[in-house]
């Protein structure tokens, strides 16, 4: 299953018997129970090597963690990540024309593959995408002719000789600077960005449109999908997520609020309103309710690393689709089916609108997604096993193995089980990320980032 370009660590994902055991490694963020809204994590993303882990929050801030180099080859401590850089990516803005505030919340971060010493990432809020350059500086020049060491200018009359400034070592400084700002291309709220495998272009998607950008050009973008109806009162569906194929630079998919996914080929025409493939599973009529439309809305779509499958997340399930079969998914995993009978309450407390993300592991054998009560779920595709784990401060002793959790759906509650009515719906895990080459995962609760690694014997 490994593609040629993909190095997988030999420490295997599944032991004989297919048991995965996960250990706590670190937790980042305030211990306070009183969460400041600006600190709510809104996106988590590893870079292509897994050495860097970026988070974005509601306050428009980006925090980048770096894997501790010294420990990278020490199995027990290889998932130690420390703060590398913090910067304010987006600020709140005001659209005077529409009298609307534009939130600074970071909706998505996507890393660019590394081309030189610096690292680049794209971060976006509802309206504007920015390309950030993160570079290290560990030397500074000393011995200017016209300036003193503290920066004051010298009196030219006192300069009698000329010298060449030398570079001297200094404490490592990591600087983030905005290199491009891609603005004013989206009328609606941006929900996705995706970098193309050609490393030259990327797409951004809002509720009704998908735009194609060149990373170098900020004053122009091409609209490649437009589902806005002529009469807005005829609107029946919106775009919820979009992603480029990992290898085919002409292919991308976008998901809709109706539970469909469309695959488009940019070679076919400039405007990709006509899809090449439409992935849709017929609805199970016995599951019909007031809320059927809401729960079938897809909140995330992700291609597998090998490019043969894609995964979608709707409110109650994760589905794996074979790109060659449009009629139905090849695998369906129930994340929290016990919530199906609670949809009315979840509608009233707004939880039914929560947008959960999902992710693949490095070799596409396991998928992961979040749930409520700070639970997150893993589905081992090959061994047909699944696990429910919890990210909590109580289970935060170093290298403590996470105990599988179980939700009791009715009848007698066993010890250690938790009943559906006791679940805390304010503690939701919407964002998770899996290291591209190793069994290290980052799981975001409301304002904390948990890092787990698989158990090393």
């Amino acid at each position, binding site marked *: 299953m490994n593609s040629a370009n993909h190095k997988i660590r030999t420490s295997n994902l599944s032991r004989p018997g297919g048991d995965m055991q996960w250990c706590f490694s670190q937790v980042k963020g305030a211990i306070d129970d009183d969460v400041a809204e600006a600190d709510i994590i809104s996106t988590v993303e590893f870079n292509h090597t897994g050495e860097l882990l970026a988070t974005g929050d509601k306050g428009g801030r980006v925090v980048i963690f770096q894997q501790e180099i010294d420990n990278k080859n020490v199995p027990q401590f290889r998932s130690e990540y420390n703060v590398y850089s913090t910067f304010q990516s987006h600020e709140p803005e005001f659209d005077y024309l*529409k009298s*609307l*505030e*534009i939130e600074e919340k970071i909706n998505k971060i996507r890393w660019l593959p590394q081309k030189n010493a610096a690292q680049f990432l794209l971060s976006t809020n509802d309206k504007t995408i920015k390309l950030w350059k993160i570079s290290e500086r560990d030397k500074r020049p000393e011995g200017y002719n016209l300036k003193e060491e503290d920066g004051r200018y010298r009196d030219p009359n006192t300069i009698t000789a000329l010298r060449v400034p030398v570079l001297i070592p200094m404490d490592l400084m990591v600087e983030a600077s905005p290199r491009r700002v891609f603005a004013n291309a989206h009328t609606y*709220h941006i929900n996705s960005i995706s970098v193309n495998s050609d490393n030259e272009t990327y797409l951004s998607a809002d509720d009704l449109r998908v735009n194609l950008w060149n990373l170098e050009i900020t004053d122009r973008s091409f609209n490649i999908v437009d589902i806005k109806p002529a009469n807005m009162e005829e609107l029946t569906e919106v775009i919820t997520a979009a992603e480029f194929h990992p290898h085919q630079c002409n292919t991308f998919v976008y998901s809709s609020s109706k539970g469909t996914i469309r695959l488009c080929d940019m070679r076919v025409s400039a405007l990709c309103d006509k899809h090449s493939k439409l992935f849709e599973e017929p609805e199970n009529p016995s599951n019909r309710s007031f809320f059927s439309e809401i729960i079938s809305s897809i909140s995330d779509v992700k291609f597998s690393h090998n490019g043969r499958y894609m995964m979608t997340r709707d409110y109650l399930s994760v589905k794996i689709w074979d790109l060659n079969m449009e009629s139905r998914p090849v695998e369906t995993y129930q994340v929290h089916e016990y919530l199906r009978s609670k949809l009315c309450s979840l*509608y*009233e407390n707004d939880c039914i609108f929560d947008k959960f993300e999902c992710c693949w592991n490095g070799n596409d054998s396991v998928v992961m997604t979040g749930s409520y009560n700070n639970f997150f779920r893993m589905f081992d595709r090959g061994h047909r096993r699944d696990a429910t784990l919890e990210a909590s401060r109580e289970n935060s002793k170093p290298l403590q193995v996470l105990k599988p959790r179980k939700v009791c759906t009715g009848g007698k509650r066993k010890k250690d089980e938790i009943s559906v009515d006791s679940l805390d719906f304010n503690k939701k895990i919407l964002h998770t990320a899996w290291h591209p080459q190793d069994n290290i995962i980052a799981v975001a609760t409301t304002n904390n980032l948990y890092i787990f690694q698989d158990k090393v014997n």
Partner: protein
Amino acid sequence: MSATTAMEVNIEARRILAVSISKLYASRSQRGGLRLHRSLLLSLVMKSARDIYHSSRESDAPSEAQSPPEEPMDTSSSPELPEPQPEPLSERNSSETAVKESDSEEEDYESDTTEDKENLSPARQSRKRRGKASAAPDFLPNKRARLEPGEERYAAPVASCRVGAGESLTTLSLNQVIPAF
């Protein structure tokens, strides 16, 4: 649908309608502006709830005391209305009709119709809905519909509104949700 009575379904549908309307109003003051996706989902739930509410009202119709006064109105307006059909609700819910389009269709389908002023008045050929009742339930904000240019506000007598005032506020909101963009 489970084996609950039409009355329970009716109550449930009304509750969901009320919750949805208050969510819609709340979302107007949300930071970052109206979210199109969320508004669309809210309007879909409201449409479902309203359709089910009407169908459960119709199944209750013979047993309700209100129905007799409605009949004279029905016969007078029936020439104007298309043949009311027993609506295949599930099909309608899943159909891809426009929100507004289905509003108008559903209005035609009502056999227990409210004072259907649009169809009675020759000047009112528009299939657009607008405010019918000015009396709102206590639990809902006291707001009037924003009228389209050329529309007039009709003060419908409350007694003739067979469907509660909540329904009229629903119809306001559904139309206003999407065009707000």
